[in-house]
């Protein structure tokens, strides 16, 4: 037991050194990410050209809930530069959470469980941002707050799954069981992320256009802010994840120090 806590202290010492360095990296990531995202916004509003409405697959205007989705020049399309990057980053975090969950189940280390949970948490923040921005866009362009369209439906389900993940964690007392169940559920939940991502390719009737493709034909004035948005938001997300991870690790270290201090007193 004493040996174990000595090991923990040693590991804690190593962590303190690296956590300081990671904090710097995280802060740089957040600042750089914010700068890129700002560039995305400025470019989107000042330089990117106005475009016509949703690029429907057959080139025809569609009628959704009585409103014609026309090919007018749409100022609301500017939300594309925010909505799509934030959605893509949310998918990345859900997948990362599942990868960490697999690693936890394979190696049973607490640190993987912690990373999986934090990826889910950052993922949830991005999912909520996607839902809000998407809903505003839906209301403006399609004339409805909500429509049970395949992409929206699967993404809504993804949000419910991530919320369920945290409810599940809260409902299990034992830390080991909690980590195990959460990892299993994270993997099951992540099955929905690729479904939601690829649904616009599988179901051609979907109103969402296929955005990520090699022949996208986005002109540079649109592609640059779009990519800046993706990388910027990914960096912000990564920075948040890293800062929170350092915080949690430090909290765990304090707990272990407290425990060894109490042992010393005894």
């Amino acid at each position, binding site marked *: 037991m004493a040996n174990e806590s000595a090991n923990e202290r040693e590991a804690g010492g190593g962590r303190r050194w690296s956590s300081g360095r990671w904090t710097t990296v995280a802060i740089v990531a957040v600042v750089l990410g914010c700068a890129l995202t700002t560039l995305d916004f400025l470019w989107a509003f000042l330089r990117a050209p106005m475009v016509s409405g949703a690029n429907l697959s057959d080139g025809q205007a569609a009628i959704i809930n009585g409103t014609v989705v026309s090919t007018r020049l749409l100022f609301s399309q500017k939300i594309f530069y925010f909505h799509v990057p934030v959605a893509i980053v949310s998918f990345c975090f859900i997948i990362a959470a599942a990868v960490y969950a697999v690693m936890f189940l394979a190696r049973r280390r607490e640190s993987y469980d912690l990373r999986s949970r934090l990826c889910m948490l950052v993922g949830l923040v991005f999912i909520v941002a996607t839902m809000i921005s998407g809903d505003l866009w839906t209301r403006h362009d399609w004339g409805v707050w909500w429509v049970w369209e395949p992409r929206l439906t699967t993404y809504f389900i993804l949000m419910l*799954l991530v919320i369920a993940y945290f409810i599940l964690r809260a409902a299990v007392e034992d830390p080991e069981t909690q980590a*195990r*169940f959460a*990892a299993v559920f994270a993997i*099951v939940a992540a*099955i929905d992320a690729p479904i939601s991502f690829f649904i616009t390719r599988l179901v051609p009737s979907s109103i969402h256009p296929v955005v990520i493709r090699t022949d996208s034909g986005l002109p540079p004035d649109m592609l640059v802010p779009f990519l800046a948005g993706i990388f910027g938001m990914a960096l912000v997300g990564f920075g948040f994840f890293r800062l929170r991870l350092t915080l949690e690790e430090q909290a765990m270290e304090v707990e272990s120090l407290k425990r060894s201090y109490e042992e010393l007193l005894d």
Partner: protein
Amino acid sequence: MGKGDSKPEGTLADTASGARDAGAGSPAASPRRASAWAQYRALLAKDLRIEARTREMVVSMGVYAVLVLTVYGATLSQTGDALDVLNVASGLLWAMVVFTSLLGLNRSFSHERADGCMEGVLLAPVSRSAMFFAKATSNFLFMLVVEVIAVPLFFLFFLAGAQVGPSAWLIVPPLLLGTVGMAGIGTFMATITMDTRGKDVLLAILLIPVIFPLLYACVSSTSIALLDVVGQMGTYLRSLALAGGYDVIMLAAAWGLYEFVVGS
């Protein structure tokens, strides 16, 4: 036999003797350890025997299904001729199936937990896959029995005067695929929620989002079958393929992850 003598000692002893019988019955299996197939049969026989003695699952699910139909009766009572029930029939049918299954899945682990049966089975050298598939099969069978009673009742109560298409029997494949998926994924999720706080609500919270794609595909194909399949066969088959594919993916995931759920 009375209800009193069956539980709680019955479950464990039944499992053990069942496994021994099955192991002795198959010459290929070693005398020490029954094959996975024998384990599966023994565990399934245990669940079916409990049900035969208590009739708890089928009765509670059946009564619940009738209650859901009663609620439908009230909710549809003021629509008069304005609503063609046929258009919403498949949705109503599947809502009944989902809620009834949720109730049954929650109940399916109550014996395992209350009588320490789960610990007994886990102590025996039983393969986790056999455990999962045995429980999923018994849940599937109970749900199927309830559907055999409740679906005709649904037709009797709500579709007696409706112009149901001649292809109405085609609702059977989606019902089967949906029930397989719900029993499989539901058994997996119910094993997770068995030991948690507020397990009844938690099962619904975990299960409904996960089965959503399956539900969507099943409602779509059932709807086509009830209205008229002519000209819609492609969509019907695509929905069925989607439901089947989702079943396969999710059952594989549940099977692979089950050993992590029951613990070691």
